[in-house]
């Protein structure tokens, strides 16, 4: 950096010194580049602001409306708590069952999608495609699809969460497999073990910690995801939240929201504790 103390005490030095010690944070080209990047970002955001379809008088009114909404939630109507807790139990069950199902489906896909364990390049591509496809479609979109197939209910919810999780679990487990130390693989190959036995002894023990950590992490995420399934009719606490909102029963909605908050925070604490234990 072209900096010098003298530049800051300019009054005491001669003019040519001032000119010599000229301080700049960036070069000219860098400044142009930064300016253009900033300008582009500003233009894009202001385009969005100007063109977005909002009736602005309403927008200015929004804080008051939201505040009003929260006032309508007070005091929470705790009489609905038993029903809410039952629904919450269903939500957690959906998350557990769906995570278990998804693990069963994700593990084979992960082994097929890892470069060092794939049986065939064509299968590798197929595995990658499955991972990208299931990961790019959001849980709630999967839920729309499964509700159309199975009708409203927990089955659609379980399938939606399980399918979305395949991509997440499969991708992370496949990455774990690719990062395995190749030396035990070499040693097991040298004993004359078949491919399946090499994977069983040299790869499986190495990825087990990753496997557990990723599964618990996904279970935690799935609790959060399963709270919204009910909105499209796929079971869980979202069902009663959505009907409470439809009937403008805000004091009941408050209890539901607080319960969701509680179970999500508990799930996160439990998941963090479990992951600390396996890693």
């Amino acid at each position, binding site marked *: 950096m072209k900096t010098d103390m003298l530049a800051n005490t300019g009054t005491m030095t001669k003019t040519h010194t001032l000119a010599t010690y000229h301080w700049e944070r960036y070069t000219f080209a860098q400044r142009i580049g930064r300016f253009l990047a900033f300008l582009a970002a500003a233009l894009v955001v202001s385009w969005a602001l100007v063109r977005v379809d909002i009736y602005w008088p309403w927008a200015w009114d929004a804080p008051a409306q939201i505040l009003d909404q929260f006032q309508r939630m007070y005091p929470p109507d705790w009489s609905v708590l038993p029903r809410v807790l039952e629904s919450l139990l269903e939500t957690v069950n959906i998350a557990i069952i769906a995570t278990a199902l998804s693990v069963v489906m994700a593990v084979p896909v992960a082994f097929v999608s890892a470069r060092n364990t794939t049986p065939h390049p064509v299968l590798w591509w197929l595995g990658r495609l499955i991972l990208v496809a299931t990961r790019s479609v959001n849980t709630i979109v999967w839920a729309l699809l499964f509700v159309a197939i199975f009708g409203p209910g927990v089955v659609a919810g379980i399938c939606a969460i399980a399918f979305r999780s395949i991509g997440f679990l499969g991708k992370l487990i496949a990455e774990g497999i690719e990062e395995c130390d190749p030396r*035990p693989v070499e040693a097991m190959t040298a004993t*004359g073990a078949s491919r399946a036995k090499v994977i069983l*002894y040299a790869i499986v023990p190495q990825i087990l910690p990753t496997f557990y950590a990723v599964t618990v992490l996904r279970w935690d995420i799935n609790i959060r995801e399963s709270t919204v399934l009910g909105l499209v009719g796929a079971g869980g606490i979202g069902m009663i939240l959505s009907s409470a909102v439809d009937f403008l029963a805000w004091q009941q909605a408050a209890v539901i929201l607080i319960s969701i908050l509680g179970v999500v925070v508990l799930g996160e604490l439990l998941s963090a504790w479990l992951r600390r234990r396996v890693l």
Partner: protein
Amino acid sequence: MLKITKLTKIYGPGRPALYEFDLAIDEPGLTAIIGPSGAGKSTLLRCINRLVEPTSGSIELDGVEITKLKGAALRDVRRRIGMIFQSFNLIDRLTVMENVLSGRLGYVSFWQALTRRFPQEDIDRAYYLLERVGLAHYVNKRADALSGGERQRVGVARALMQDPKIILADEPTASLDPKTSIQIMGFLKELSEEFSIPVLVNLHNVELARRYSRRVVGLQGGRKVFDGNPGALTEDVLDAIYGTADRDPEGVLTLESSTAAPSGVAG
């Protein structure tokens, strides 16, 4: 027993890693392969059990040509060739016993491997070998809890579990301190004699080669430049192997110590 003829390995354009290499091994005992880094020592061992595919030439084990084998036939040959690695290549998260038993993977079924239900004679053999290398009290300890020397002793036991016709040892002492190195070489020599198995061992340490091997093969630039008993390893021979101008730094060190203190060198 092992017969290698005109073995050549070319990785890419340029100097071959191994060129028209011939070697025949018939008796048990240690055969040391010495040479500077990049001389082709590791390539040679890995060609023998086909972890590296040879470009041309022939390798026969008990009269069976193994360079053309595929699938199950290749695995059958591999399970009769034990291998010991420079960095031990143990499975860290498995127990010592599981690591030793993994030497039997070529023999047991997938189900037995999965459930760890190995035949009783395998377990007996594993206990015996672990006792021989002094690790019987560690059977259920995880491999990553062991010291370097202990890990390599597990590596030796694993190779012997395979009931091998020959053992390949790729720089088995390079990751160990001098004292442990001597211990490992001692185990290799004793077990080789006890089970009458020939051991082909890559060494970067000339002194260890002199002390423990029955026969020394010198490799330089992928070619065999010396083959004889350790007593014939003169200064001139070593110059031919390691070159006068650019000796391998470790080679230089061991040479200097061995020439400076000839009394320490046992034949």
